[in-house]
């Protein structure tokens, strides 16, 4: 075992040797190592977050035909540090009659819910926090804490706009959690496990995005809703709620919400990569070919994972800066009348077909799974078209006929 093959365990072994050499008991050595590991992971995530501020500002500028930050440092790379200094030296305001303790806990909880997701994010086959057998449920649980943080922020601010934002958040989260949980079952069925390492390894031959493209699309939509990003950004809705749940926060407390939102989006990009695009692996069996063994190096795997996660993050931004905000009744109707039935139908089809087709050779299995998704998509579009036609006919019957002269 060398540093280049297995960096984390290499450092851990070295530390164990060092600490026991100093006469530290084994239990304390383990506790110190875990504490250092957790700190390193959080620092990595937060440093990445600083970079994401720059990425977000630069990308939104490009989508809006602007240049974005370009004054401080090359390509404006030092801009995020200027942003941070600005946030830190801003006056810290607590609104009158605010519920102080809850008001101050909320930003911390928001950041906690995101950072706790990094515990299960597999950067490589040998660089990861923990490999739980309930990782996908853990993802949902961490999302619940994020919801709680937004409710606490909205309620404790003693501000009507903030409270309306929090109400919308609950409606949003409680609804879009359902298609997300149903869709999380699809990688579970395909990989036969809920552990993210297992799901990644199950995709070394073929990505789940190919076996279940519709599943990926639904996951993408519900992830955007879970993030509260446009077109589901009703919780912030600058034009009607000024800034929604975080309107009263200033300085670094606002900074925590902002940072956790960016990191959350990137983390979901990472989960999209893990669940549907092979995570750190997924080279379609290329790593087994002679001469390509370096693909399984943990540093290469981490780079591949971060690139895929960044692409997912970019796709989320692409949607965010291209779509107008939806109305709340449309948002709820879209979820309950469209996404939930569709994802249930997809789940049942996937479960049955997977069991039936798994005995076939891989390419036939893949074609069968892909075809079933295409059939479901086509059927859905046809039903929607027929429904639209019927509604249009009814409207035409009601509205007065144009007068001919």
């Amino acid at each position: 075992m060398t540093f280049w093959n297995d960096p984390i365990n290499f450092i851990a072994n070295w530390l164990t040797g060092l600490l026991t050499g100093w006469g530290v008991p084994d239990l304390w050595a383990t506790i110190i190592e875990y504490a250092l590991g957790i700190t390193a992971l959080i620092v990595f995530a937060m440093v990445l977050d600083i970079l994401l501020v720059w990425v977000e500002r630069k990308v939104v500028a490009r989508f809006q035909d602007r240049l974005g930050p370009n004054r401080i440092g090359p390509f404006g790379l030092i801009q995020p540090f200027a942003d941070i200094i600005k946030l830190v030296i801003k006056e810290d305001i607590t609104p009158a009659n605010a519920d102080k303790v809850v008001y101050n806990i909320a930003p911390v909880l928001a950041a906690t819910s995101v950072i706790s997701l990094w515990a299960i994010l597999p950067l490589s086959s040998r660089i990861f926090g923990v490999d739980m057998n309930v990782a996908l449920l853990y993802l949902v649980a961490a999302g619940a804490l994020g919801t709680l943080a937004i409710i606490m922020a909205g309620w404790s601010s003693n501000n009507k706009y903030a409270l309306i934002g929090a109400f919308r958040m609950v409606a949003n989260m409680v609804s879009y959690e359902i298609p997300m949980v149903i869709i999380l079952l699809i990688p579970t069925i395909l990989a036969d496990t809920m552990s993210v390492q297992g799901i990644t390894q199950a995709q070394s031959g073929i990505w789940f995005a190919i076996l279940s493209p519709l599943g990926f699309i639904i996951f993408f939509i519900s992830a955007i809703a879970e993030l509260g990003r446009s077109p589901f950004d009703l919780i912030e809705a600058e034009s009607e709620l000024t800034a929604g749940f975080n309107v009263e926060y200033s300085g670094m407390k606002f900074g925590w919400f902002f940072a956790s939102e960016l990191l959350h989006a990137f983390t979901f990009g990472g989960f999209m990569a893990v669940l549907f695009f092979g995570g750190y692996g997924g080279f379609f069996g290329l790593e087994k070919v002679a001469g390509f063994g370096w693909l399984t190096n943990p540093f290469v795997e981490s780079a591949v994972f971060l690139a895929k996660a960044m692409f997912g993050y970019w796709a989320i931004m692409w949607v965010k800066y291209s779509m107008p905000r939806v109305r709340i009744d449309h948002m709820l109707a879209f979820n309950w009348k469209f996404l939930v039935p569709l994802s249930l139908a997809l789940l049942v089809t996937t479960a049955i077909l997977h069991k039936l087709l798994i005995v076939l050779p891989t390419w036939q299995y893949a074609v069968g799974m892909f075809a079933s998704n295409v059939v479901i998509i086509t059927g859905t579009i046809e039903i929607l078209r027929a429904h639209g036609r019927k509604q249009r006919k009814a409207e035409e019957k009601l509205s007065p006929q144009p007068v001919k002269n």
Partner: protein
Amino acid sequence: MTAEQILFLLTGALILGSALMVVATRKLLHAALWLVAALFGVAILYAILQASFLAVVQVVVYIGAIAILFIFAVMLTRREMRDQGQQTRTNWWIAALLGLLILAGLVFLILAVPGADRLPAALPEGLDTVRALGNALVSPEAYVLPFEVASVLLLAALVGAVYIASVGKKD
């Protein structure tokens, strides 16, 4: 004292303290938030016992769904969410006595269970608890009947909710 025992005692203190605050605080919303803390403590207990599935489901169901709906309902009900009245009844000592008796009975019963004073044994290496639980839920020798009955009950509740919600439209 092992690390596990220290963790257990700390978690127990967290749960009991939060549970006490649920009934002692005067603000309704604070009570709901303390309830979240108590439920989270129970999730930690499951995690200490290596019941990872139960721990995560505890957070998803009790905090993610039930507690959040509690808070939602509390926020919708009253503007002034403070209770100004007296917090105890005149017969509080009878309730306290009954509570102590029940506690004594529970302690007596638990001590009578063989092995209650031992630490839990570590799970065998490679045991997939989630798979075992899933198999138990659909196996005829185990819990398929209660599982199906609960499913039918939930389905009935779902249908009932849809019916109640849709009656208003016809009028």
